[in-house]
C-alpha cells in the first residue's frame, strides 16, 4: 500500500487566518508536484470556501475554528473546508459573491454537508502526482 501525502490545519476562522491557510495550501501543492495552472485553480476554489467560512460561519457568534484537510490521491486531490458554524451560500445574496459558482466551475465534484457545522468537500483532478 502506498502512503499518500496529506495536510491538515485548524485555526480560528478570521480573514487573516484564511489567507495564511491558503498560502500553506499552495506550498503543499507545490511540494507534491501539482503544476502551476492547477495550483492556481485549486487555490481559487479553496480560497472561496475558506472566505465563505470566515465571513459567514460564525456571524453573530463567537469566532470558532476553521479546518482545511487535504488528501492526495494518485490522480486527484480531495480537499475539505470544515467549520462548526452556519452555512450561508454567498451566491444566494443578491449582488454579492460568486463563491460556489467558482468552486463548481473548477472542482470535479463538490458536496456540502451541513450536519453539525459545514463541510465543503471538493475533489480536483490533478493528473498523475509523483508523491
Amino acid at each position, binding site marked *: 500500500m502506498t502512503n499518500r501525502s496529506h495536510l491538515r490545519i485548524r485555526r480560528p476562522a478570521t480573514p487573516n487566518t484564511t489567507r495564511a491557510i491558503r498560502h500553506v495550501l499552495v506550498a503543499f501543492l507545490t511540494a507534491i508536484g501539482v503544476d502551476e495552472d492547477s495550483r492556481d485553480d485549486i487555490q481559487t476554489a479553496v480560497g472561496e470556501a475558506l472566505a465563505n467560512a470566515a465571513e459567514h460561519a460564525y456571524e453573530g457568534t463567537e469566532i470558532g475554528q476553521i479546518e482545511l484537510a487535504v488528501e492526495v490521491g494518485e490522480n486527484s486531490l480531495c480537499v475539505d473546508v470544515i467549520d462548526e458554524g452556519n452555512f450561508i451560500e454567498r451566491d444566494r445574496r443578491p449582488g454579492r459573491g460568486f463563491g460556489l459558482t*467558482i468552486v463548481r466551475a473548477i472542482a470535479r465534484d463538490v458536496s456540502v454537508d451541513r450536519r453539525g457545522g459545514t463541510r465543503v468537500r471538493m475533489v480536483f483532478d490533478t493528473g498523475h502526482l509523483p508523491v
Partner: protein
Amino acid sequence: MDGELDLNRRAEIREILRVDAPGSPILVDLSGVMYADSTILAELLRFHKEAAEHAVPVALVIVARQFARLVQYAGLADAFSIFASVDEARENLLMGRQR
C-alpha cells in the same frame, strides 16, 4: 491595487473603487494583483454599476492568470472591459472618447 485582493482588503477596495467625476473615463490598474477572490468581483460589479449610472467608461487591467480565470469562472468575462496592459486599456478609453 496590488498583491492579494481577498476578504482582508474589502474595506480598502471599497474605498478606492469610487466614481468621483461623472463622465471622466476610469482605468483600474490591477496589473500588480497576484491573487484575487470573489470579494473583488462583487466590488468591481458594484463599481461598474455606479460608473454606468454616471456614464463613466471603465477599463480594467488584469494580468495575473489566476485573476483572469477567476473572472471567467464567475461568468463575468463579458461584464467588464478587460485589457492585458495599461497601454491597451488607455488606448481603448481614448478611442471611446473620440467617438
